[in-house]
């Protein structure tokens, strides 16, 4: 029997789903995500959206998320390092540079141009005390504190036209990185690619849409079996309600910090 006296920890539910337009054309899902929980409750998460115009976009996206997360893990962030804004930004900056390099190396190794592997990238480091994000291109990262304040840490980066954005492989990519951090008692975080941003953000106000995120955070909080939860999230991303509104690939990482007492669950309805 589980007792309510558990130590709090990160619980993650994450999924990528192929958009209906890609399914129709027999294309792969161009999105990728990856995450890892490091010692001291340090969550590292990354999502990437390979460009539809890039022949190897999927590969670019996979290399980007894996390299970014691995790089941070290898840098061995300590709670002390994370207390310092400059060091925290540096951690993210190095991960982005490493991801860019890895994608470019893969391109040259396979006789491709870097833009053949064009992809966006969002990297997040979150602890119960702070959340920090680096982002190139569109998509969004949000966080909620213990007082129920929901905030977006980044905003989708588009050019004049909605189908234009900056990629990790763009020449000016490193100048366009959005960095942000929020020092607060962090309860929930989420990172998503652009396929969901129309549903998850109020674009006129430039704010995250609370009724979108709150039920998902609740769901992740109550999730008992990670495999089942992932399936449920995938099913939701493929549900008709969503595919009617968007035909793009969809990726969502949800992180919730807390204890999972069963009694707690029943109360939260």
């Amino acid at each position: 029997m589980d007792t309510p006296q558990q130590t709090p920890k990160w619980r993650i539910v994450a999924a990528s789903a192929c958009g209906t337009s890609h399914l129709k054309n027999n294309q792969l899902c161009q999105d990728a995500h990856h995450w890892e929980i490091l010692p001291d409750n340090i969550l590292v998460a990354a999502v990437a959206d390979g460009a539809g115009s890039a022949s190897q976009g999927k590969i670019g996206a996979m290399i980007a998320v894996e390299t970014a997360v691995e790089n941070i893990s290898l840098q061995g962030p300590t709670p002390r390092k994370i207390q310092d804004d400059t060091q925290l930004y540096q951690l993210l900056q190095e991960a982005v540079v490493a991801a860019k390099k890895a994608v470019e190396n893969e391109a040259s190794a396979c006789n491709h141009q870097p833009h053949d592997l064009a992809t966006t990238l969002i990297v997040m480091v979150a602890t119960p005390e702070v959340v920090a994000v680096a982002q190139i291109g569109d998509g969004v990262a949000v966080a909620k504190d213990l007082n129920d304040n929901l905030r977006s840490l980044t905003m989708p980066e588009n050019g004049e036209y909605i189908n234009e954005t900056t990629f990790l492989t763009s020449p000016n990519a490193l100048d366009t990185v959005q960095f942000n951090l929020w020092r607060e008692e962090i309860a929930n975080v989420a990172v998503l690619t652009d396929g969901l941003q129309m549903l998850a953000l109020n674009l006129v106000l430039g704010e995250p849409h609370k009724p979108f995120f709150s039920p998902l955070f609740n769901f992740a909080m109550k999730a008992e079996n990670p495999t089942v939860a992932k399936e449920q999230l995938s099913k939701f991303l493929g549900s008709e309600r969503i595919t009617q509104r968007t035909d793009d690939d969809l990726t969502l990482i949800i992180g919730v910090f807390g204890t999972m007492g069963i009694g707690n669950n029943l109360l939260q309805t």
Partner: protein
Amino acid sequence: MDLNITQKVMLDTLRLDEVVEFAENPEPRCPCVLLLDTSGSMQGEKIESLNQGLLSLKDELVKNPLAARRVEVAIITFDTNINIVQDFVTADQFNPPILTAQGLTTMGAGIHKALDIIQERKFQYRSHGIAYYRPWVFMITDGEPQGELEHVVDQAAFRLQEDEANKRVAFFTVGVENANMDRLNQIAVRTPLKLKGLNFIEMFVWLSASMSAVSHSQIDEQVALPPIGWGSI
């Protein structure tokens, strides 16, 4: 016990679908101006075929639910006068007009008007927080500029070159039958296409497929357009 677990799982999945609410954002728009020659030379079979083509454009666009909500069509005709026959309207609200042909060919003024209304439309999008794709202009003519001052045409061509270079617009030119293709080539940046016979229907089906492809595109500047079967360079 097993039954309970199954029930719980089903309930949770169902609930996620039911409880997550979506932000109500306006659909991104994909504006397309049809800039149509309605001068005297278009009379008869040509204008009738063009009218038929407009009907098929509407039919094709509404077949695609996302395109029907995202593609916005406007129609400007140029003869002796310039008329906005249809201001921007999403495809599902578009009622194709029946055009008639008469008068001269003030193409330069028509190009100016098309670029003007695009500029205004973008301003409206921005002030309403509506995201948008690069606008298209699709000009169809069976002739060349006629009945207006040469410098109006020159200015229009110059402005068009600037707008293309700055990615403000993508401007396509289609010549019908006796159109002066050399003259059109001097005006447009993209090589004008010659319509095969009066194959307007096939051309508008292509236009619909292309606009649909653009209106679905995500972070993807280069959209692969369907092959052109209705015309040649």
